[in-house]
């Protein structure tokens, strides 16, 4: 199949497949600006005959005098055809259609049967997509070209970092220091969005308060480590290579085997990415003991994937993505409705939490945080910040700076009332970022514990 990465056969469409395709397409999008321009077409009003079915989303745009433009996207592998006849990068129309589809908004008049022109496109692609066929060869060629561009970008970034270190990172704190934005743009050009976003984050470090030179050196060093890892990708073991690929920003897809489990929804929160919303959902497999992260994306003003209520349990299949310690997964078939539960996941001490993060770094040294559940901890003020202190051992983790300004912190403190509670969150080198709490303290003995979302 053209540009197919998973190589899977046709699968029924649904929010899951489409969010995966959106994500791939977002990854393929050359820059934030073109993601933004796709937004204009993520509206039912932009299309005169749009629909989805058989794994394809399509739409027709009236274009004044000339014949209408037709756009169709295969949600399975994000390959597309469009009347605007673009080059290699996905065009804004295809992106818009996918965002529209992924937003899962109720669309009147959606058909399930693709019209003739879509069917023809599909048939052509199938013919070309036969193994060894022209499409497969084209895909391989494209993948090779992209790898070359990423390598070029990684080498350029490496040189820029070395130049920065030679002159001294004190310069990064000077007014008018313009390295980061320009470098990030170069990484976007090199189709390495993962490198681009890390570079952008570097730009915020000099303003992050005392101790910034140390933090900037850490992040520069890890960025160079990523460059080097990419350049020497062939010599890395398979899982680490997959981690590096996804850290650099190459598209990956979930690979089996699917894990069927009773998944407890631990937390769900949205973060803006430009004007597209990224929704993160943490699940805990009650039988497998495995934590997994679901990612989905939504067009502006629209919810990403349908919400999964925190504290519910669902019987479902989750397929892990390669690399990154197998943390990321994709939600597959669900069996029955989610059920409310009062039981928090099993958790450990603060020492267990940082140890788990330390172990996870072996698989992914670029990992900022790891999902953990702390049991019997008490939030307590400490200097300018807060700590979570183990009620039994007295050992403490600092609350991550990002969480200090969120209202969730005060919910957590209120729930605790100075008594121990169970908290799920992301634990990493910046501290612990609390996302959900279960309280069943002494003061609330008459009420069974209940998951309260903090994010």
């Amino acid at each position, binding site marked *: 199949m053209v540009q197919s990465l998973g190589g899977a056969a046709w699968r029924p469409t649904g929010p899951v497949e489409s969010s995966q395709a959106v994500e791939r397409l977002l990854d393929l999008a050359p820059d934030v600006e073109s993601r933004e321009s796709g937004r204009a077409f993520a509206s039912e009003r932009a299309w005169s005959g749009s629909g989805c079915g058989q794994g394809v989303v399509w739409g027709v745009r009236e274009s004044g005098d000339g014949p209408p433009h037709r756009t169709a996207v295969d949600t399975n592998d994000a390959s597309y055809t469009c009347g605007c006849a673009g080059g290699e990068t996905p065009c804004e129309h295809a992106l818009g259609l996918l965002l529209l589809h992924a937003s899962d908004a109720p669309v009147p008049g959606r058909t399930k049967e693709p019209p003739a022109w879509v069917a023809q496109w599909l048939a052509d692609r199938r013919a070309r997509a036969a193994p060894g066929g022209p499409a497969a060869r084209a895909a391989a060629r494209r993948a090779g070209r992209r790898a070359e561009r990423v390598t070029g970008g990684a080498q350029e970034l490496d040189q820029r970092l070395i130049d920065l270190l030679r002159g001294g990172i004190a310069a990064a704190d000077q007014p008018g220091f313009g390295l980061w934005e320009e470098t990030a743009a170069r990484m976007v050009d090199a189709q390495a969005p993962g490198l681009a976003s890390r570079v952008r984050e570097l730009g915020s470090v000099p303003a992050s308060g005392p101790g910034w030179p140390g933090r900037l050196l850490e992040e520069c060093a890890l960025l160079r480590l990523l460059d080097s890892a990419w350049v020497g990708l062939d010599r890395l073991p398979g899982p680490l290579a997959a981690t590096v690929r996804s850290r650099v920003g190459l598209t990956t897809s979930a690979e089996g085997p699917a894990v069927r489990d009773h998944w407890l929804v631990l937390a769900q929160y949205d973060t803006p990415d430009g004007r597209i919303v990224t929704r993160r959902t943490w699940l805990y497999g009650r039988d497998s003991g495995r934590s997994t992260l679901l990612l989905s994306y939504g067009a502006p003003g629209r919810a990403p994937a349908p919400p999964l209520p925190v504290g519910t349990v669902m019987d479902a299949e989750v397929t892990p993505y390669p690399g990154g310690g197998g943390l990321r997964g994709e939600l597959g078939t669900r069996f029955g409705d989610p*059920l409310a539960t009062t039981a928090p996941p099993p958790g450990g001490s603060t020492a267990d939490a940082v140890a788990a*993060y330390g172990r996870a770094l072996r698989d992914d040294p670029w990992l900022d945080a790891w999902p953990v559940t702390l049991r019997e901890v008490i939030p307590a003020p400490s200097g300018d910040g807060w700590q979570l202190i183990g009620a039994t051992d*007295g050992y403490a*983790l600092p609350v991550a700076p990002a969480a200090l300004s969120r209202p969730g912190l005060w919910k957590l403190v209120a729930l605790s009332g100075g008594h121990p509670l169970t908290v799920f969150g992301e634990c990493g080198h910046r501290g612990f970022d609390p996302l959900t709490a279960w309280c069943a303290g002494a003061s609330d003995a*008459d009420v069974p514990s209940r998951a309260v979302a903090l994010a």
Partner: protein
Amino acid sequence: MPTTVTTTGVTVSALWEDLVTSALLGTDRRPLRADDGAAVGPAALLDAAAVHTVRRRAALRPATGAALPVPAPADPRPALPAPARRRLAQLLADRSAPPTGGRRGSAPDLTELIPQWLVSAGAHGYRAPAELLPALLDAARARTDLRPHVLAFAGPRGLWLAGLNPEWKFALRASSRGARRPDTADPEAVRRLWEEGLFAERVALLGAVRERDAGAARSLLATTWSTERAEDRLMFLDSLRSGLSGADETFLEEALADRSRNVRSTAAELLSALPGSALARRMAARATSCVNPDRTGGAVSVAVEAPHECDAGMQRDGVVPVPPSGRGERSWWLGQLVEAAPLGVWREKFGGRTAQELVSLPVADGWADELHAAWCRAAVRQRDPEWARALLGAPSTPLANGPGTASLAERSQLLATLPAPERALWAAGFIAAHGLSEAFQLLGVCSVPWDGPLGRSVVDALDIARDAGSYPWSFSGVMGLAERCLNPAEADRLAVLTTTPDEPEGASPGAGGYWSEAFQRLVSTLRLRAAMDAELVQDGTERPRTEGGSPAN
């Protein structure tokens, strides 16, 4: 000190601090040294830093915790029923949502229902859900009118929480519940807090002691009275207002000689509210020397001779000598004397006439307004329903011809001194006679929910306004009050008004539609309030739905 073999094959052992210094200044200026002493380049520095970074992150250990907070005191009140908890979360979320602007449409305004919800929840004696305390405190920070309800509902855990966040310090200040409050039966603890406590704590303490034993509070206050700052004395004195009795008179009399004018006038005001006090007797003597029955013309009338001076004695008793600009000195003094004199003296002076009869006596020389206004203030201050009733007169009497005052603000104060059912009846009569345009302030002092006759007269008046063809937003204030104050049971009766009527001759264009919308909002708000009340009376214990039970959605 980790040893790193860099990509260039050089071995580097350096402390993290050395790496940062070299990175900060640049390897050109401050080269990093390899183990063999050779300068290593920036690439090798980055490699060494990466090893340090990953090693450090992988080896993180928890710290020894800081001091644990003192746990919040237990709150024995029952938890909210789950539907009521969800409702509160929704009300609070709606509050912080940005306003949509423009016309209100037919949807209820949830923000306006927060105070009522809090009062109902408080009346049921529920404990606030812990996770909603931050939002409750934020709401109270933004709206002072919510504070008493929020603080009562938030209870001890709310105050515990407010103590941890400077943004909520109003909670510690605003409420006597907010301060440290020792066992008032422990004289040693009381004395120590009184002498060492913060101002808010001392005010709270005084209030608490006063609640239990008014005399003990007075003695406590007397121990330090002469050394307190003037503004503190004023606040402490004000605490005598609750449970004021003849036993406080001596203390207040002494305060009449206070250095601070505000303290003096507060003391005088408190004394004058004690009809048996010496001050009240002195004021009565002064007032009755100015206001006398006049029998010269056969029928009795009221003769007024305003005071010619404001002597030192009057000033000591709280009479303010200098009038505000535009008012004559003598009438200003007269007003203050009559206001501070016990109302009972007039009955004596005028041969046993009732308040009703006194108010209807003719007053000579144009002093009627001045005298009646002073009586109004006295009736409010002394909370005398008989006088208030007399001064209000019949609700149907036109405003300008009323016996007491034409001021709606003063009338609503008078109204507030009447028992609740009488208040509602009077307001209902007023609206029936004068319509809604002047009724707003009067409605504000009626108790909620409005009694049947009052509710009916408001709805009838709205219906009449609609038939007259004006726009509903001319009545938006009353409409808003009705949404909050009408008895929810009226919703069904009101439903017939939500239809769009035919537009009468001369009506404002489109008014019918807007009225229909306004009544729809009224009805849906009443239904919502009924639902909210029902949620609050559900069984307070939450039954978790377990797996295998009903679906969560």
